[in-house]
């Protein structure tokens, strides 16, 4: 293997693909078949209904990620691969968290939600469900603060990202 910069880094790849059945499986298959790892994955249509955007987070050295990008580009249905590690970009994740709401904790949960600009989307007798969007760090910090109250369930999306218009 090529020994150069072997530092393992997180890369957010934004992959524009033909919006067709089977395309996601080609991408996922490429990762599994070549021993690359997918940390998270989001797929949705873009403004052009014929094109989808796959936002994928992977870990690897520059050398591995270079190879991943080349392999992705080689897939016929991949239109463009953007690596946000080289660009200025905005990143968001979303999480919904069901947290135990003991009477003595309720005020603190709501205060925390407020500080993070999170929304309470469901209030039950024993639990609240909170919704939050933000970058990875913000989501992690939020979950850490809620942990002592007792987190029952989490549903978290992977990252989505767009490059800033810095012209």
């Amino acid at each position, binding site marked *: 293997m090529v020994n150069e910069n072997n530092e393992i880094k997180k890369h957010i790849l934004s992959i524009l*693909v033909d919006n067709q059945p089977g395309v996601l499986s080609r991408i996922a298959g490429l990762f599994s078949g070549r021993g690359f790892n997918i940390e998270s994955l989001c797929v949705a249509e873009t403004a052009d209904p014929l094109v989808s955007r796959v936002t994928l987070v992977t870990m690897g050295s520059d050398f591995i990620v270079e190879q991943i990008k*080349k392999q992705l580009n080689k897939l016929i249905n991949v239109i463009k691969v953007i690596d946000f590690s080289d660009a200025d970009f905005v990143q968001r994740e979303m999480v919904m968290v069901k947290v135990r709401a003991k009477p003595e904790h309720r005020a603190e949960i709501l205060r925390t939600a407020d500080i993070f600009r999170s929304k309470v989307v469901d209030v039950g007798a024993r639990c609240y469900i909170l919704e939050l969007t933000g970058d990875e760090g913000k989501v992690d910090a939020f979950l850490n603060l809620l942990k002592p109250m007792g987190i029952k369930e989490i549903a978290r999306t992977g990252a989505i990202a767009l490059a800033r218009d810095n012209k």
Partner: protein
Amino acid sequence: MKALQSEGVDTIFGYPGGAVLDIYDELAKTDIRHILVRHEQGAVHAADGYARASGRVGVCLVTSGPGATNTVTGIASAYMDSVPIVVLTGQVNSNLIGNDAFQEVDIVGITRPCTKHNYLVQSLKDLPRIIKEAFHIASSGRPGPVLIDLPKDIMQATGSYRAAKGVELKSYHPTYEPNMKQLPKVVDLIKASKKPAVFAGGGVILSKASKELTEFVKKIRAPITTSLMGLGAFPASDPLWLGMIGMHGTYRANMTSAECDLLVAIGVRFDDRVTGKIDTFAPNARIVHIDIDPTSIRKNIRVSIPIVGDCKITLQKLNALLGKEKLGSLRKGRKPWLDQIEKWKATRPLAYTQKETIKPQFVVEKLYELTHGEAIITTEVGQNQMWAAQYYHFDRPNAFITSGGLGVMGFGLPAAIGAQIAHPDKIVADIAGDGSIQMNIQEMATAVQYKLPIKIVILNNSYLGMVRQWQELFYDRCYSCTEMDHAPDFVKLAEAYGAVGLRASKVEEVIPVLKNGLSIQRPVIMDFVVEREEGVYPMVPAGASITEMLLV
């Protein structure tokens, strides 16, 4: 059908079944030649052999389910060796897909990782476009197999044929033109180098760049080696030829790679069978890597100058640049380096000693002499394949057809059928092992039916010889399950198929049997009973440095 004909298809290798009845019905009304193989794997290897011998796209047609799954090995082999083929598979009715219908299999899913691309046709109107795209994708850029899955109801539907216009794939644009900024750097490296070497591979043959490669090598007067897939890209009779590199490469080719200070690699992918231990490969060399597939570059090996581009175009441009330089003194300055290589060649030539029992190398050498090096050679896999590579010398591209990347036993016979169809007037010989030949032996019937005078040269050691050799060297001679003592009588077998069977068990019979076999205008099996425990040497043990060769 019209779409296929508009792609210039005149030959299809195939095998019918329920899901493709409608296609076969239409096929009968065209003048496309259909070669009925005896197993779908044979159809794919034959299309592969056809494609490699002719430089055109090979086409096969099989039914759904088992017909489709039988093609997978052939497709994977073509994928590894970048061979342009289009595989048409039948599929159950579209409304049944996903229901575990009779003879349904998700062949698009199964072949996704071993095709360059694949399609499930969902509407008849898409078909002309898909066929056009498939041929374009298969044959352009780095070539490879493309599969098209055809549901039966769509094949039954009728519609007026509207030819597809050009191919518009917004996401597929292979890079043919090299980055012109890189080329002068290559020229500078060449001028600065005292000990340059060239390493060419299958990419040179695929891009039909042998002439340009030869010109390049002569201009810079550098010794040249190739991978297994590159044999024939440069004439083996030329004094600058080093022989093949790698696990069973020649001593001088491997030593050259270790000692050179510049390695110009063209149309190769640095397979582990070539490089041996990667950290010690070409330790003193700056490496220039030219390939059309960006993923090949820096996949396995560090490179000083990467150039993504078509081998032919890139070499033409490099040659033009070199043409402006005065290289006379540079060529003269090569003498010490070439002298060193001559010394390696003289001390460690490829050699064997012919005693009482027939040596397999002797058979290949005589085949080479008797065919004046002009045959198209296909091979099976194992020792036979390596002896073919070492002792048949190729002066021309598209003459050595072997399953290199995947190493499929059973490849050579069907590939010979495909090659013979592409070149009815040439001698086509399959250099075979007694084990491998039994893996697609049923294709003898195909050869007989279509009167294809292919020559099967079995180097019969009654062993799975290559595996036995590893057991001999690395497993204390424990020959576990590699003895093939229950083989058929190949002479009688040939006769049973309606072909000719010949045998040589003594040294003096070798030449007469070869002469006789080559002169017969029918399929012939020649069974050579060879030294049972002969080994292929040199050999670099797996994972060792390429210079750590075991010599006899």
